[in-house]
């Protein structure tokens, strides 16, 4: 039997409150399925399961707060059989059709509400396409929904719904307080434990913005890029040369193979959420824009998955054009650096003895002095600046 435990989603998480089970005993789960919403100090997080099997028992009640590591549910691994229990009736019904086809297949009872009959493939395609299976008419054995049914339903829906309707404005109640507390705890820990050093450089953004304006003119509205994707990409590329900054400090410096940039998203209601942009160095500006388009609305709706949050190797904070001129960040432990970008400002710049006006960005680095020294940080910022002078290569 697999014990599903309250996961740790970061070094700072000590406990979580179960808000909602997304499964019930008897449900089949696959690795990666969302099985619960857990409210943490970071907000409501969708919790994934990492094993395949059948949910045997739910041990934690909704609204119960339990420490990390607490067994929350028992999952019977795929292939393992259990003594039949009344609770598993619906699974049994679902797979009842696995009988000797030489025998008469017994008449299948009319589908009951909780026992929606759909093939795994149909379920998977439906999930990937956000299709509600209860709206689909099944044509398979015993009324089971098959791939064909789902594909037909998706095609029909896509014709019907263009453009897509507004999502219902029923975002879960933001637990601002919790998020505030999470930020407080992490930042306090950081300030207590991490000896920060700070560096700043000014970057001429005229080439980058010109390239961007040109690129955007040729694009449909939906494909436009924001300056921030260039900043993310440049940071990620620069990090390749400075692996000591893309690391964590846990009993010494531990470099990370992947460059996963924690991107700070501020909530209008206060507080921050920092989902990870995985392998940012390998993504094109368009890919990065797409990632942001996926992450930001979900973050603001407090609908991030646990995997969105737990893997970043460095943090990037961007105040944007409405923000202050520069930001000196507080490192998010156990990371060892945070990159900060202020607003892009028109500034007088001396060039060849003349004063010109240029859009200027103030980029900062806060580094963990246990891990690196100012020299490494300076070289990193220099590299960042160089990269932003060649936007077309990003």
């Amino acid at each position, binding site marked *: 039997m697999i014990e599903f435990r309250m996961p740790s989603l970061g070094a700072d998480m000590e406990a979580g409150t179960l808000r909602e089970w997304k499964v019930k005993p008897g449900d089949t789960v696959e690795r990666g399925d969302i099985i619960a919403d857990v409210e943490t100090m970071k907000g409501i997080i969708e919790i994934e399961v990492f094993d395949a099997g059948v949910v045997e028992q739910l041990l934690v009640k909704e609204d119960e707060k339990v420490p990390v590591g607490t067994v929350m549910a028992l999952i019977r691994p795929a292939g393992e059989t259990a003594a039949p229990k009344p609770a598993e009736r619906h699974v049994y019904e679902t797979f009842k059709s696995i009988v000797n086809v030489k025998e008469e297949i017994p008449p299948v009872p009319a589908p009951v509400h909780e026992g929606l009959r759909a093939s795994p493939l149909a379920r998977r395609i439906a999930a990937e396409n956000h299709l509600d299976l209860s709206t689909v008419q099944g044509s398979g054995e015993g009324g089971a929904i098959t791939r064909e049914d789902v594909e037909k339903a998706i095609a029909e829906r896509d014709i019907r719904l263009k*453009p897509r309707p*507004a*999502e219902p*404005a029923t*975002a879960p109640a*933001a637990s601002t307080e919790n998020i505030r507390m999470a930020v407080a705890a992490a930042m306090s820990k950081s300030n207590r434990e991490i000896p920060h050093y700070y560096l700043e450089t000014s970057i001429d953004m005229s080439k980058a913005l010109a390239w961007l*304006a040109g690129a*955007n*003119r040729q694009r*449909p*509205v*939906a494909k*436009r890029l*924001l*300056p*921030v994707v260039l900043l993310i990409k440049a940071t990620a590329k620069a990090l390749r040369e400075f692996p000591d900054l893309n690391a964590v400090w846990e009993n010494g410096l531990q470099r990370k193979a992947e460059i996963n940039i924690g991107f700070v998203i*501020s909530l*209008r*209601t206060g507080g921050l959420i920092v989902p990870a942009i995985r392998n940012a160095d390998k993504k094109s500006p368009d890919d990065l824009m797409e990632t*942001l*388009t996926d992450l*930001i*609305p979900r973050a*603001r*709706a407090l609908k991030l998955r646990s995997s969105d949050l737990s893997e970043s190797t460095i943090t990037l904070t961007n105040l*944007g*054009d*409405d923000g202050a001129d520069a930001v000196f960040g507080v490192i998010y432990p156990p990371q060892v650096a945070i990159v900060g970008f202020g607003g892009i400002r028109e500034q007088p710049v001396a060039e060849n003895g003349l004063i010109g006006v240029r859009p200027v960005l103030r980029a900062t680095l806060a580094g963990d002095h246990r891990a690196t020294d100012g020299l490494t940080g300076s070289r990193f910022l220099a590299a960042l600046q160089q990269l932003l002078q060649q936007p077309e290569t990003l």
Partner: protein
Amino acid sequence: MTDADIKTTIFQLLKRIAPDTEPTLLKPNDNIRDTLGIDSFDALQFIIALNEKLGIEIPEQDYGKTATLEQLTAYIKTKER
């Protein structure tokens, strides 16, 4: 489209982009982004939404002409044939 229709559409779209705001409380000359706390990302999403819903394409250089509710409504009307 009447001014009222345009306004309703704007409110709907803003509500969708930023569900935790109250766009209907906007005054005609309020800066939309500042008042609602909308960042550049949300602003772009709003422009995309306007494009999808009304077929209007606002080029980047015109962003300055669409800062307030009043300006935006007027801008949309000029773009309508």
